[in-house]
């Protein structure tokens, strides 16, 4: 059986072992450093759109329906907008708004959450700061979706928002969604941005429906 010299067997085994270690190392690096490329592509496209289409007048109402220019502000994590709005494909979903102002802003969302499982919730953040937290109730339409964004969170002329889904989810196949078969967890219909008054400038991070 053992006709091969021992040194050759050990050399081959070392080479195989090294290749195995290389696989493990590469996999760890890939897992740690990879970012969903579709998100990166969408984020880059949204940033380009935001740079070319600054929001200079307030209030501004944006309706995220098919074909509307404001859909360009949707970054990573969204399906292409449909006739009823833009639905989330992956959490978190980005919204990049180039608002040319240094004032506190009031954001009024129309959001539907199709996550009827108990304990599901939606969180709105900006640059890591929680702005609002909504528990999903019996009805899909989220209430109390008026949020104040402090001027301190606007940097480089950009309002960067992220919507996060937490807890158990149950997808809903929307007949009127952007495309048949798309599973909807969260549907962003529209957003109105206006200047906040002084009394409403503090965000309420634990506001619940």
């Amino acid at each position, binding site marked *: *059986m*053992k006709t*091969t010299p021992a040194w050759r*067997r*050990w050399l*081959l*085994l070392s080479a*195989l072992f090294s*290749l*195995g270690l290389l*696989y493990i190392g*590469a*996999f760890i690096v*890939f*897992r740690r*450093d*990879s*970012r*969903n*490329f*579709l998100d*990166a*592509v*969408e984020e880059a*496209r949204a940033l380009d759109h935001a740079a070319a289409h600054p929001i200079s007048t307030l209030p501004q109402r944006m309706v995220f329906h098919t074909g509307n220019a404001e859909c360009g502000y949707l970054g990573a994590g*969204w*399906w*292409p907008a449909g006739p009823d709005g833009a639905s989330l*494909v*992956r959490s978190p979903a980005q919204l990049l708004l180039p608002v040319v102002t240094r004032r506190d802003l009031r954001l009024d969302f129309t959001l539907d959450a199709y996550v009827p499982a108990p304990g599901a919730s939606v969180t709105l953040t900006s640059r890591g700061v929680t702005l609002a937290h909504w528990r999903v109730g019996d009805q899909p339409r989220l209430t109390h979706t008026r949020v104040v964004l402090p001027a301190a969170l606007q940097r480089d002329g950009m309002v960067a928002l992220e919507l996060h889904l937490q807890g158990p989810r149950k997808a809903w196949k929307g007949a009127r969604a952007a*495309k048949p*078969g*798309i*599973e909807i967890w969260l549907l962003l219909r529209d957003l109105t941005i206006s200047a906040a008054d002084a009394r409403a400038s503090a965000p309420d991070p634990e506001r619940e429906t």
Partner: protein
Amino acid sequence: MVAPPEKFWRTALAILALYLASRLMLVVVGVMARQTVGDGVAEPLARMFCRWDCDWYLSLVTQGYTTGSADGASGKTSYAFFPVFPLLARALTGLGLSPVGALVWLANLCFLAALFYVQRYARLLGLSTGASLIAVALLCFVPQGFVFSAGYTESLFLLLLAAAMYHMRREQYLAAGIAAAALSGVRANGVFFLVFALALILRQFGWRALVQPWQRPEMFVPVVLAPLGLFAFWAWCYYSTGDAFAQMSSVEQGWQWRSAAPWKNLARHLDGNALARFWAISSLSVGALSLLLLRRRQYEEFFLVAAILCLLWSGQIPNSLLRYCIVLFPVWIALARELEHRPLALATTVGCFALLNGWLMVSWILGALVSI
């Protein structure tokens, strides 16, 4: 296990005849379907075998990988497709072939070569020449077997799987390793060759061989090389997009692929529409036939087939389950062994296979989803 001597050329001619007869039948069915029940517009032969995913491979041959989605921003990108098949087709275009022609020629050459490997493999398992040719015939006429001539990866996958298993059994470990490495660059489930290789080592050399790899390290060459194609693709994706798992990202978002327990998926498919039921029943039939491998104590082949079937069933989408299953050639070898001395059963089986294949070819020509 020692095969009796046979006349190589006679066997080769038989394989070639089976290949040509089955492909001729498909071309006739395809042209007649197009002319009689289709739109009546004549179509180049190569283009007739290029539908659905073939267009993705075509874009890979002509443009390489791009991050742009096919329809807006849905996530359907060419990164969903593995590189070895389009890379080889691209090399063929250097010989003056059109991209479509290169894909179809490549598929057919791979299929023909795969038939030779399958026949040799069947002989290696102790089948008679007649039984091994029955296995070849089953592969030629298997339902949806037209994809072996289409711009799809099935023929290359079949060739590399058969080559890797053949050389592994013959203890030609470097050749087996090279084929296995390429296999995982054709489709992710090629990595499951590992199951076969480890099971074969365990059965042939005992568990001591696994825990004392320094005794015969050469037999682990195919085991270690098997994931190389997959890792190379991941590395390329990481380099070009920053996402090593771009293939999975694209498949999940663009094609809504999700995984779940195989039994739950199968129950859902069987409870679904006619298409889902067809694909589920087809794959279950292949699964049932794989039990014949146990009867013949071909445990290594059975574990391989079972592992790949479980992976296929773990997807929540039933599309193409039949197409994915027909490359599991050990099943056809096992069936051939059973049919060898039953001429009526053999004629019935091949006849039914050919009928179903013809029906699916018509569906393919007409662009029906069942042929996807």
